[in-house]
């Protein structure tokens, strides 16, 4: 029996100890009318060897195309040590550290994670993870509604330059609580949120302003002006940031005069493989004075009976298992293992290493854009500074081009026409530090061939 250790003798003796004739008798409180028959529509059991064959074939079928797609999921190098350590059974097969004394490993790692995320974002405190970037933003919006006591409107300004999936997730998660999301247009030349567009909301009751950096187009937003506008308008500023970019960019904690109030984002670029979109890592950081409005687990450093340093879950009175319907969030299981991987990843890179990764991404993206825009009819769509992604305009429909590239084992970017029909034949391309000159030259060659045939 796979994964069940009982021998015939165990079974016999255990049934005798309980005082029942067979296992079936243990289900005698379930009304007979409800009992199901055999699950005949399920596939037959197969051995580990057979399932290895099946999964290997399916993996091979999908292949491993060279990836120039970013759009919220980034193909970074992950040091071998990260997952060798994170996959250790003691991290991998533990659960939420309810028994602190028997979970000091996980708890200390999460404390280190909180410390590193606070350092990267320049914020005072961090929690111990949320599901992913989009849900982290939804939680940040809910948190802002609770925290901004000067505002009654429950209106949130959300730029159109924010990741389209984030906008959808936030709508799905907060829309049932009378929270209104108001879209901010972007500047068609710069691809950024024009601070002047905020004039229309001047003096209105706005609960929070969402500020992505870099935005979905890879473009850098005027974060200082946007943050200052928010604070002048009694509006909270919510930063949505890429943690790798933060090695180069001004951290949200020091945006404008006072800094952002809440910073959140997708932690995948810190040690999580692309893995079809998950498991990833939502993070959320905030000012110390907002910490009691924070969702999810938080680890604190404390002392034991002997005065020795130790770590424990803290501020649990915010959480669902204590506060039930009045909790700050319903989250229970989070992404602890991904936070563990991110912590190890950051420890291995250090701030200088992370800065080199970010700089190499930026340089590769520039180089890629130079090579591609050297082709006739391929143009950059926006004229503002970018990090490691950029929108390019093609002379022909993007779907055809991308399909032909994909057939040659190259993912040449994301077609933006579904989410931004106003942009025409636009694709979003990305180059991380992993992309080589050779791969970029190959991209150029393949694209040229497609465009000239």
């Amino acid at each position, binding site marked *: 029996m796979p994964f069940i250790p*009982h021998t015939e003798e165990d079974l016999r003796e255990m049934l005798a100890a309980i005082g029942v004739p067979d296992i079936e008798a243990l289900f005698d409180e379930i009304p007979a009318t409800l009992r*199901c028959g055999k699950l005949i529509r399920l596939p037959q059991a197969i051995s580990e060897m057979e399932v290895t064959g099946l999964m290997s074939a399916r993996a091979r079928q*999908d292949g491993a195309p060279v990836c120039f797609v970013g759009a919220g999921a980034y193909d970074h190098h992950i040091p071998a040590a990260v997952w060798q350590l994170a996959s250790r059974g003691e991290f991998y097969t533990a659960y939420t550290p309810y028994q602190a004394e028997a979970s000091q490993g996980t708890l200390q790692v999460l404390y280190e994670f909180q410390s590193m995320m606070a350092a990267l974002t320049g914020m005072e405190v961090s929690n111990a993870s949320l599901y992913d970037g989009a849900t982290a933003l939804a939680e940040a919006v809910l948190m802002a509604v609770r925290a901004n006591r000067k505002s009654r409107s429950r209106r949130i300004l959300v730029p159109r330059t924010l990741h389209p999936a984030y906008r959808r997730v936030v709508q799905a998660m907060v829309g049932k609580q009378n929270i209104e999301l108001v879209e901010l247009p972007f500047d068609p030349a710069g691809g950024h949120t024009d601070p002047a567009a905020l004039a229309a909301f001047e003096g209105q009751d706005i609960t929070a302003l969402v500020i992505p950096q870099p935005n979905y187009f890879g473009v850098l937003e005027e974060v200082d002006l946007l943050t200052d506008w928010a604070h002048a308008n009694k509006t909270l500023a919510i930063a949505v940031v890429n943690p790798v970019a933060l090695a180069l960019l001004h951290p949200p904690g020091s945006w404008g005069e006072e800094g952002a109030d809440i910073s959140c984002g997708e932690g995948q670029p810190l040690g999580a493989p692309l893995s079809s979109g998950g498991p990833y890592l939502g993070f959320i950081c905030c000012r110390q004075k907002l910490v009691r409005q924070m969702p999810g687990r938080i680890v604190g450093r404390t002392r034991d009976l002997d005065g020795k340093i130790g770590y424990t879950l803290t501020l649990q009175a915010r959480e669902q298992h204590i506060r039930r319907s009045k909790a700050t969030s319903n989250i229970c299981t989070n992404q602890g293992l991904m936070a563990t991987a991110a912590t190890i990843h950051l420890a291995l890179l250090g701030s200088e290493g*992370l800065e080199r990764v970010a700089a190499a991404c930026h340089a590769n993206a520039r180089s890629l854009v130079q090579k591609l825009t050297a082709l006739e009819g391929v143009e950059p769509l926006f004229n503002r*500074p970018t990090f490691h992604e950029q929108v390019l305009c093609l002379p022909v429909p993007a779907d055809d081009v991308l399909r032909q590239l994909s057939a040659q084992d190259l993912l040449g970017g994301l077609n933006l026409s579904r989410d931004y029909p106003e942009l025409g034949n636009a694709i979003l391309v990305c180059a991380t530090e992993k992309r080589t000159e050779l791969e970029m030259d190959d991209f150029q060659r393949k694209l040229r061939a497609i465009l000239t045939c």
Partner: protein
Amino acid sequence: MLIYQHSRSGRRATAQAPLQTADLSAIPKRFRRQQRAELPEVSEMQAVRHYTRLSQQNFSIDTQFYPLGSCTMKYNPRGCNSLAMLPEFLARHPEAPADHSQGFMACLYELQEILKEVTGMQAVSLSPAAGAQGEFAGVAMIRAYHDARGDKARSEILVPDAAHGTNPASAVMCGYRVRETPSGADGDVDIEALRRLVGPQTAGIMLTNPSTLGVFDRNIEAIATLMHEAGGLLYYDGANLNAILGKVRPGDMGFDVIHVNLHKTFATPHGGGGPGAGPVGVSERLQPYLPVPMVAREGEHYHWLTEESCPESIGRLSTFAGNAGVLLRAYIYARMLGGEGMERVAEYATLNANYMLKRLTDAGFDAAYPERRATHEFILTLQRQAKELGVNTMDFAKRLLDYGFHAPTTYFPLQVPECLLIEPTETESREELDGFIEALCRIKQEAEEHPEQVTGAPYNLPVKRLDDVRAARELDLVWRPDNN
């Protein structure tokens, strides 16, 4: 020692980042970071040693019996992990086009079909990232259903007093008011009390069955009829699905919507707090509202169902498709078990729980529901020991750690005083159960003879009992150079 305390300025794990520095002139100075983030500077070996040593300060399934009630801490098969981490699966970008995704999507499609069959539901979406998000999705679908019918008066969700805290919290996130329904003395929902709470304002009820009291609610058909006659829907919290896999299906009990915790019933690792996965299944009338994306099949070709093809969907709950890597592990596990293997899961999980319950009550412990069968878990109440000996449940729990066992769930459900919720799972051997039973009996004896030995526990762990009050009062959440 923190990783920061190993740090020395100028030290770096140099193999881990590109060596040449790049031209950053295209980023104007006003966007640039002025000061480097305070991250540790350590060598690769220092990092490896530090995190290896930290891992050794954890209890885990791989190292200890971990009978945490309602969490289903069963063995996580190694094969599931290694196959889900094949390089092509790890490298697949979530936006990869269909021609580079058919193998992955076949796994997801088949997992959807497997979950439909074991839950008795009509359709499944895999995207919720954990149980609580599955609950949110489920209640949001209940709301979408009532809204679509113009039935706007339904403003309340009923939740048993024994429910997980996530249930009421999820209902509130969907804009509902929560009313608690009491449990009767036998652990089943008090159906007369429920009858008084149900009305035209009721949108639905969230139930776990077997409940968190460790018993199967025998009135489930009557509850379903009562709810449906009042126009409300039934939500099944799948936290305890392990108890009934292949024996009785939520769909057959009358539930309209369910979530399944794959990190419990389908053996995916708990990761020190996650990631999990909380797929949702629905009956036919809720199918249009399922969260996107899902996988559909046309002939031999798989494609995504998204907002465009599911206009009535409650929407998207994660940036991409949920915790895909967890879904692959669950799929591999399901294939290795097959239908028969799943029935055995419920059988041996129930056998183990009833065996422990019998032996522990024989040894003088009090069951919370002595007249009832255990399901895959059961509750002991240590009220007597707390009153007579001054040794409470937390003390027993901490002392168990000294004996090398992770403690069961303590002080939950809230209405059973001084309770231990014990869930052994099917993957534990009889010897392991006997060892745990023996340890509890010895602790009881210690409590009777030398209570301070128990109240002072643990002694054999990296730290003694921690000061939670201090942790909350003198908040220290982040290391800084001035906070060493």
